[in-house]
């Protein structure tokens, strides 16, 4: 049986896995098994990132995302965000633990200096401290909430990003979106923003679940619903098809050139089924 492939349409979103899988937390459900020790995917050097930003600009990229691992562990993250904001609207995905007053001030200054929006997505998996920290680690909740408040206080409007990892424990009819929205309002954030993403059964959760995608399943399917048709990820080792599969050799499309990665990608992984079924995107909207 041949593995189906998704055509490439255009480079809309450039992702930069700036710290590889190096993170100061060790969440139980992390899809790429990021953690504090022995990251299996290395951080990117500053020069590589700047080169990718330049190439992406010439290719008409629409938005740029920094992810990891924890991007704020990178020594040059602020200058890199500044460089990205000269090219396109930029988003940083973070656990929020490193966002202090000083970092929040710096981010606010970068946002004010750019014509493009700076988005900061802060991961929280439950509005209850104990439940959140059970999967994200002790202290994670308080630090994330501090980051949400620090950024909101500077007019930056962070986006609370939650996976559905703890959803199964909630009673039926409890709207996840409304719970987070109400929580943000309750801590004084007047313009609540919430993004919810499904759980990918991979990484630290171990691989399980659905079968692989087949040509038959994709007959007549609107491929534009798959983010790999207009997303590329720069990570250690080259350019990959999507943020979920970054670093996996089967998903690698070029050794470093974005343009060379503009070709169909194999939908070979179990996580491709999740995107196919849910229509999810890692992008903000």
């Amino acid at each position, binding site marked *: 049986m041949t593995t189906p492939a998704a055509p490439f349409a255009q480079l809309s979103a450039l992702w930069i896995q700036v710290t590889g899988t190096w993170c100061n937390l060790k969440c139980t459900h992390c899809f790429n098994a990021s953690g504090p020790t022995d990251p299996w995917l290395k951080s990117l050097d500053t020069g590589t990132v700047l080169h990718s930003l330049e190439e*992406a600009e*010439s290719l*008409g990229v*629409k938005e740029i995302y920094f992810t990891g691992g924890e991007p704020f562990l990178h020594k040059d993250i602020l200058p890199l965000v500044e460089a990205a904001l000269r090219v*396109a609207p930029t988003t940083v995905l973070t656990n929020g633990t490193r966002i202090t007053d000083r970092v929040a001030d710096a981010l606010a200054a970068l946002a004010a200096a750019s014509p493009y*929006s700076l988005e900061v997505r802060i991961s929280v998996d439950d509005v209850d401290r104990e439940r959140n920290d059970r999967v994200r680690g002790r202290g994670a909740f308080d630090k994330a909430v501090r980051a949400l408040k620090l950024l909101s206080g500077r007019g930056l409007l962070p986006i609370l990003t939650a996976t559905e990892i703890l959803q199964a424990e909630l009673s039926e009819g409890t709207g996840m*979106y*409304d719970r987070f929205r109400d929580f943000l309002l309750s801590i004084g954030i007047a313009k609540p*923003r919430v993004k919810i993403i499904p759980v990918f059964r991979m990484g630290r959760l171990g691989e399980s679940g659905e079968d692989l995608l087949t040509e038959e399943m994709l007959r007549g399917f609107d491929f534009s619903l798959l983010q790999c048709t207009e997303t590329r990820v720069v990570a250690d080792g080259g350019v990959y098809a999507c943020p979920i599969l970054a670093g996996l050799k089967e998903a690698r499309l070029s050794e470093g050139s974005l343009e060379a990665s503009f070709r169909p990608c194999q939908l070979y992984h179990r996580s491709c089924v999740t995107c196919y079924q849910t229509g999810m995107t890692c992008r903000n909207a």
Partner: protein
Amino acid sequence: MDDSGEYRRIAVFGGVYSNYLALEATLADAGGRGAEAVFCLGDMGAFGPHPDRVFPLLKAGKVLAIQGNYDESLAMGKEDCGCGYTDPRDNHFARLSYAYTVRNTAPENTAWLGRLPRQRRMRLGRYRTLLCHGSPRRINEFLWESATPNGLIEKFLREYRADAILCTHTGIKWHRILADDHHLVNIGAIGRPENDGTTVVWYALLTAEDDLRVEFIPVAYDHEALACEMEHEGLPYEFAETIRTGWWTTCLEILPAKERARGKY
């Protein structure tokens, strides 16, 4: 793609959203400003009351229209409006207004929407001008001011062989001039105010002389009457509130940070 001729001065509006009172006022205003032609960039329905009331006005005004995503969805009998919202609250409100609009649009008007071109091209003075709803590549792509890089605009202009692109879909106007006298103009919307706390709506007047001059024109209309009709029709309270206050109460999650920061909610 339709070739819509050559002009020196045109009026362009979009996002009517069934706001027939604003449409009436816009057409009257444009008529008094010497526009040689009036263009509409789509989304006739949604949000407002009595969707059928906009069609006689568009036809009497000889408006050259293109399809928006809402028009496409109605014409194709799709299950949703295709607005591109991603969160449950926005989708909840979108479903309510789409169901109302489907229910209250006559078949002949739906068929008329189905016959509209998806894009138009014209000469505006020396400017090769492309008219689209969302973006040249996707009918429901949002081109917000703070989320549309110069590199992307240049790519569009190169690939679609244009000097100026006119679009709508976001509901908030903006204009950017790039190198080589290239332009992108998001002409805003006349169906609802643009989240700035005022009740006026906006359209664009474009004049090609030596340079391309883009003026955004505010239009006042009887917004209280519209809000009352929306309530009478059972449309969500949140929609009428937007018409009365000028602040968006829904469709908020799609706003980039800078645009969201300017609003009240």
